[in-house]
């Protein structure tokens, strides 16, 4: 990658009381890069993303965005949550514009951008719907549009498709890539689905658990645009196999623990 560094994480450590969740994580993400984090459940993916989002404080270490040290949340980052977290009393349009509203620039100019954005995510015509009138897939589109509405430098996504059924999820993956191609934002995408990570990303960070740390960083050297059929090519399957072998032990351990 010859793009400049967008996000740099330096020796990040997080503990909850005695539980060491993240140990000395260091990584760099370049501008316009799509990076996924995979790892077994409980390995600290969400915690990592929340620290980068400024929603959680690290015990030590630093996160820099364009060289600035981050200390709290801000509209330079857009967070797409695992549950859609839409405000039920707001329409699609009002939900999407919550970021600009909080930032104090919800004006006619912004409205034009928002309507374009809703069209981009496939929600044109649904501006005045309330969340309860939408399907899960549509709510996640609003969730994404809401994060994009503040025009963030960095998009943080925490398993946004995990609550969707398998078909809808695949559609949403292609949709996400289509939307991403439009603006080429820097994306940090958390998932526990290996094929999702490989399909979407330029690089995949494979997390190990207890304490969470980066086990391996995989370059995904597959051409773009990527059709869904790519998931059946031998190259794709080889990437998935490789990552699966890396985390298999950890996944087994975490499954056993959850059932203990």
């Amino acid at each position, binding site marked *: 990658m010859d793009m400049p560094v967008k996000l740099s994480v330096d020796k990040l450590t997080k503990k909850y009381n005695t539980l060491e969740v993240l140990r000395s994580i260091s990584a760099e993400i370049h501008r316009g890069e799509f990076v996924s984090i995979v790892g077994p459940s409980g390995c600290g993916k969400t915690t990592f993303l929340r620290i980068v989002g400024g929603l959680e404080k690290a015990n030590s270490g630093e996160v820099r965005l364009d060289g600035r040290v981050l200390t709290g*949340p801000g509209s330079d980052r857009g967070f797409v949550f695992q549950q859609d*977290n839409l405000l039920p009393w707001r329409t699609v349009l009002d939900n999407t514009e*919550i970021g600009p509203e909080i*930032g104090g620039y919800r004006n006619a100019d912004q409205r034009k951008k928002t309507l374009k954005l809703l069209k981009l995510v496939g929600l*044109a*015509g649904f501006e005045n719907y309330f969340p309860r*009138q939408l399907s899960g897939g*549509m709510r996640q589109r609003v969730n994404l549009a809401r994060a994009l509405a503040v025009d963030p430098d960095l998009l943080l996504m925490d398993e946004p498709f995990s609550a969707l059924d398998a078909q809808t999820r695949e559609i949403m993956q292609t949709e996400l890539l289509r939307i991403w191609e439009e603006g080429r934002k820097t994306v940090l995408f958390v998932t526990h689905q290996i094929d999702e990570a490989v399909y979407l990303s330029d690089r995949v960070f494979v997390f190990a658990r207890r304490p969470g740390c980066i086990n391996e960083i995989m370059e995904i050297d597959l051409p773009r645009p990527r059709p869904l059929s790519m998931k059946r090519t031998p190259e794709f399957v080889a990437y998935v196999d490789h990552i699966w072998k890396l985390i298999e032990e950890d996944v087994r351990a975490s499954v056993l623990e959850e059932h203990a």
Partner: protein
Amino acid sequence: MADAALTEAQTQPGWGSSLASGLKARAWGLGSIAGGLLIWELISRFLVGNKLFLAAPSQVVVAFIELTRSGELSKHIYISGLEFLLGYSVACILGILLGLAMAQSTSAKQALQPWVSGLYATPTVALAPLFILWFGIGIMSKVVVVAVLVIFPVVINTEAGLRTTSPQLIETVRSFGANARQIFFKVALPSALPFIFAGLKLGIGRGLIGVVVAELFGSRAGLGQLISQSAETFNMPALFAGVTILAAAGIAMTSGFGWLERKLLPWRE
């Protein structure tokens, strides 16, 4: 994609079918009321046959017309209405403010909680004679009784509504850099509104009970006074006229609130 999105949207019931089902539900309700009135009329005419014990609906209607003609009824309605309105408004404003205070500050919550829970559970309406002793036989004592009865469900619901605000939603607006004021007005308050409404609705019935009971214990005018006076003179038709008006007021206010709720909170089912 738009097509796929369209099919994803929840299909809503058509206007025609909802109208038809509404009429059907109403038909049963109206039929039930008419049947009840008919049975009441027949029992009081043929089974009881004594106006001193039970007045027939037709006699209540006659009493209603007479009371209206003499101007007596409007006087009673005006006094009771005023007492209710003043007490209810004061209780709503104070109740919401106290609920906000309890939700915002732990010390306020700890200081107020025992009083709120204790007095909500107490049948404070039994204290009406005491309030009449303190505040006199005029409307003031009734306003106080109404306010005391209405305030507790309002406080409790306001506090509960604010306290149960989803932490995920708060976190969401926080991720966009919202400050405490924005979190309150954009998340906590709107999410508490349905609870606050429920408290206000509960207050209607309690407030009406307050008006009547307080007037029974001592008053110069009002529907409660009309009822107690009619009972003393064995004027059952007038007594029932008073009760009917109270019932109608309760139903009208409750359904008015339901209407307002649907207008103000269209995002709910």
